[in-house]
């Protein structure tokens, strides 16, 4: 497949997904619709996360910070400003935060970067909590005037489609190539003339803008928001987890994993929240250990090989357990004895 064909394939798949999602409110129940909304939210978050963090291998845990900043922007302004401007402003504020944060920590690699982004998210959460409790005297904020649920759904859908489309486009530009270069060898990319600092901050801000917009759009779903819910580090963890399980280097992996996860989350979380969290942890460990490339790195021949290995193993076992093996061995011994007698 050459690159034009790949582009055509990706765009067609995106159209198919988007078409289904657009049609969904027409016939689906409220439960399915809320499931789809969660799913779209994680598609947008993890696809945009993978766009920067997957290709450059800078493991950011700050998604919750951008999400929360967007949500707070929305909570403060949604009653007075037009809806689209609120979402855009959420994206802008998050992107500015990312530029500031990136300038401070993007020269550190690996574990440092992950731990620092996590620490900064917590710092922002505690600062907002402290500010709310001492200066304004409240813990959270009520959102009284909110757009109806269909508007929210279509906004999040638009953001998800935009995230995937951006991902498709960026992969084919010099900017995307520069990010890939940073991911494989940062020093070499620098030597070849890539302004790594600028590219990294730009990519980080792009990721943050999507997270901020999604936060701004999702905030009105809750009628009451407080720092603990919108800056919940779990939002960041789950985004990373979905991207890693789907395959952080790939385009469609995060989307695939997001769909699987939101179904798992909605079915399991209400009945057994601890069980859900435990299975998340276990899945993360198993994927990092045995399938570091993610779901999207699975190919047909691997499934085929696994399937035939399973069948072969089952055949051997059935032969043993049915007593056939013991009978055959006894017969062979008997024959050997008779041969000796003759």
């Amino acid at each position: 497949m050459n690159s034009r064909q790949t582009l055509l394939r990706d765009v067609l798949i995106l159209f198919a997904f988007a078409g289904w999602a657009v049609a969904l409110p027409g016939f689906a129940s409220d439960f399915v619709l809320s499931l789809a909304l969660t799913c779209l939210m994680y598609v947008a978050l993890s696809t945009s996360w993978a766009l920067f963090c997957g290709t450059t291998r800078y493991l950011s845990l700050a998604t919750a910070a951008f999400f929360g900043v967007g949500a707070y922007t929305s909570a403060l302004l949604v009653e007075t400003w037009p809806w689209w401007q609120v979402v855009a402003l959420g994206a802008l504020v998050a992107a500015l935060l990312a530029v500031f944060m990136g300038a401070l920590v993007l020269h550190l690699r690996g574990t440092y970067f992950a731990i620092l982004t996590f620490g900064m998210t917590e710092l922002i959460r505690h600062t907002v909590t402290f500010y709310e409790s001492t200066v304004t005297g409240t813990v959270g904020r009520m959102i009284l005037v909110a757009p109806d649920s269909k508007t929210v759904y279509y906004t999040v859908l638009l953001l998800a489609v935009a995230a995937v489309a951006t991902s498709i486009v960026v992969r084919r530009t010099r900017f995307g190539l520069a990010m890939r270069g940073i991911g494989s060898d940062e020093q070499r990319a620098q030597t070849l003339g890539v302004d790594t600092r600028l590219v990294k901050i730009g990519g980080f801000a792009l990721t943050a803008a999507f997270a901020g917009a999604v936060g701004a759009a999702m905030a009105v779903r809750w009628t009451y928001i407080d720092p603990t819910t919108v800056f919940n580090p779990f939002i960041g963890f789950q985004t990373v987890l979905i991207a890693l399980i789907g395959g952080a280097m790939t385009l469609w992996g995060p989307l695939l994993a997001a769909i699987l996860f939101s179904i798992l989350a909605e079915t399991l979380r209400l009945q057994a929240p601890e069980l859900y969290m435990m299975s998340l942890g276990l899945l993360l460990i198993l994927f990092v250990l045995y399938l570091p490339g993610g779901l999207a790195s699975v190919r047909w021949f691997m499934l085929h090989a696994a399937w035939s290995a399973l069948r072969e193993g089952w055949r051997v076992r059935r032969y043993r357990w049915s007593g056939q093996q013991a009978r055959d061995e006894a017969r062979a011994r008997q024959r050997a004895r008779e041969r000796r007698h003759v």
Partner: protein
Amino acid sequence: MSLSTWIELIVSGLITGGIYALIALGLNLQYGLMRILNIAHGEFLLVGAFLTWMVHTSFGLSPLLMLPVTFGLLLLLGWVLHRLCFRPLTQTSPNLDVFEARGLMVAFGLMFLVKSFVTYVWGGDIRGYDYMSQPVNLGFGQFAANKLLIFGLALLFCAALIVLLRLTLLGKGVRALMQSPMGAQLVGIDTKRLHPLMFGIGLGLSGVAGVLLSMAFTISPDMGQAYTITALIVIALGGFGSMGGALVGGLLLGVIEAIAMHFTSPSLKALLSYLVFIGVLVLRPEGLFTRKGRKA
């Protein structure tokens, strides 16, 4: 402010600092030796704390008796976890950076797993029990007996680990591995046996810290993460791989926190500790967290 108030503040800071040092020593051992940034370290503390709470409230056993039991149990758990998770990771990772990133993700998985397990088994409520809470007069101030006991035991365990590393042949091997993994293997130090053992000892110390905590403070499943962060701060303060540094850093952080909380407000505690953490890491990442000569 009078002198006795100062002394009381400093001593109560040292008491919490002793626990910080104990947790940080375990984490430092794991990160310094194996480059596993075990973000789930604080969650294993919960296992020790809740186990002690359960045994004490239902069977009336002394928490002191649970110290060796918890240590042994978590050592075994650490051994098994290392064999199941981190050894395959060492074999499949192309280089140390990839290993570190993947190890961090595995540790995040463990964090979810252990925390949810604790919540599932023991519930999400705040727990606590009464143990030796009568005050003791030390001449310069009154302190609860259990807190003094905690301080003494925490220092004892820290000292035991440092003595083990300084004076025994086993400790010499571990220190050699920290200085140069390749060189240590060349002179015949068996990493395959030392790594799981040291990972286990790290977890065991975390469990011991949990037992100690449960004697004097209330425990809840949400506190694990805060202690992990505190341990990270202590390591950042005291220096990477340095056991003495972690001990001093832990005590220092306890005192700083006690004094800062006295003058501002207790709700600022988390904010202050994150601020210290980020400040130290951003301003002085080299020399605090990494080896000499190796840049971050």
